[in-house]
């Protein structure tokens, strides 16, 4: 495998984690357009831990995930009062807030960025990405996931069948933030250089796009979306300047004909040759 494709593969693993971070939050009916910020928190914190404090990378990632999870829970509290586009706007605001914090955070280079991280392999990236994907797929079969779906479908009814909807929504935000932080830590140690612009609004939108394109109702949808988002523009390279336009058209097309994205429960059943539910 050429180093070029290896780096694309690493990029898609990092995007997969970002997409899953959105997917987990979306499963409770909340749209976050600020997960780039949690990614940034993970990137900066883990880099500081490994570079300045010599903490082993895996431990640094775990610490960053926990820290981002706590921040996610704190952010989720005021967000509980908001729904739909208002919530999405608030998360955009949060993202910008974090980005400008890093711009002014001179200890770690401010707008000049931060470097000095040890380089990690594609394999290490995918160990995390694959591991977390499988964990989310197992979670999808749990009681907690059913509770999240209930909150997603009808929050009032969920409360009235005995579910604590506040805890569910906050936990989803915390978990999503933690996963985004892992994505950020891997990004930092794969690129060995980070700057605030890496974690802005566009990054958050990429995460959401990967989920919506690949399939927003099943975890493997994020995998499909991330691979497509990274590799498709490369395969479209022959049409040069038109490739982004072609890619954009494809996205619009998918949304028009398949709102749930490419992958959904019934497609998975078909692909695995299992009998469709009667």
């Amino acid at each position: 495998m050429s180093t070029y494709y290896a780096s694309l593969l690493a990029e898609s693993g990092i995007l997969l984690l970002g997409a899953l971070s959105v997917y987990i939050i979306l499963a409770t009916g909340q749209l976050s357009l600020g997960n780039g910020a949690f990614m940034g928190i993970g990137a900066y914190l883990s880099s500081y831990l490994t570079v300045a404090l010599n903490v082993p990378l895996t431990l640094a990632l775990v610490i960053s995930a926990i820290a981002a999870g706590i921040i996610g829970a704190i952010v989720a509290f005021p967000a509980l009062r908001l729904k739909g586009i208002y919530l999405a706007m608030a998360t955009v605001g949060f993202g910008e807030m974090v980005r400008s914090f890093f711009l002014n955070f001179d200890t770690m280079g401010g707008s000049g960025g931060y470097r000095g991280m040890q380089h990690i392999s594609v394999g290490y990236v995918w160990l995390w990405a694959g591991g977390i994907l499988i964990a989310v797929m197992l979670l999808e079969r749990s009681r907690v996931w059913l509770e999240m779906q209930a909150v997603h479908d009808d929050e009032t009814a969920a409360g009235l069948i005995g579910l604590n909807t506040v805890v569910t929504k906050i936990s989803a935000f915390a978990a999503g933030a933690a996963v985004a932080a892992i994505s950020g830590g891997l990004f930092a140690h794969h690129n060995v250089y980070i700057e605030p612009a890496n974690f802005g609004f566009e990054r958050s939108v990429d995460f959401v796009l990967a989920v919506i394109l690949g399939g927003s109702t099943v975890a493997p949808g994020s995998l499909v979306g991330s691979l497509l988002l990274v590799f498709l523009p490369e395969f479209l390279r022959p049409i040069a300047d038109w490739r982004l336009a072609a890619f954009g058209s494809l996205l619009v097309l998918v949304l028009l004909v398949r709102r749930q994205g490419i992958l959904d429960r019934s497609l998975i059943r078909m692909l695995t040759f299992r009998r469709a539910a009667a």
Partner: protein
Amino acid sequence: MSTPLLQLTGVTKTFGGIHALSGMVCEVPEGKIVGVIGPNGAGKTTLFNTITGAYRADAGEVKLKGVDVTQWPSYRIVREGIARTFQNIRLFGSMTVWEHLLVAQPHSESAWRRLLPIAWANPAAQERAEEVMAFFGLTELRDRPAKSLPYGIQRKVEMARAVTARPKLLLLDEPVAGMNHDEAEEIRSLMIRLRDTGLTILLIEHDMNFVMRLCDYLYVLDFGVLIAEGKPEEVRANPVVLDAYLGKDD
């Protein structure tokens, strides 16, 4: 008599100028089927909403087994033993029948077990879901998206979802609305069987015949005020009720 399962004293709920419920007083003794009747807009659904914490009462107390639950959040009231159905069915759009029966069970197991696949971690919950599914005759429909089912069956799924939680008190808001005679009879016999297993039922219903043949006791509401109560025969003969309710019924 011992403490009633549910006891309301002076429960009042207003919306702007509308007195949806004024000084409601009622009792639901354990093991009975109690009915709430009244014309459209009488405050029946509001009564259920205040009992379950969906609305906060402006005044008065709701007591469950003598415990004041008036200010509790909905989920705690449910876990304390009150489950309900809704007048306009509220099933979860993305879930199958089976999933509805799993999601509504009480949360006895540890947080860790709740994060693991149900198939591994929670045989008891699955058994309970199977049992309730069989009781309501839903086993065949197990993997169907609940919202794709016919209306009458959706009502049964909703009842089943409420029952899986092992409530002490079941609140049913017009459980046979929109059903034909046979379907309604089936629900009636299910309710009697539930009562015989020790469940207490409070139900709202428009169909007088249905209520008369099912309930042990009735409360009659009109414009948010309790205008009569008593055994079905007494209520049927009460001129105030005939005036307010039966006269207007269409």
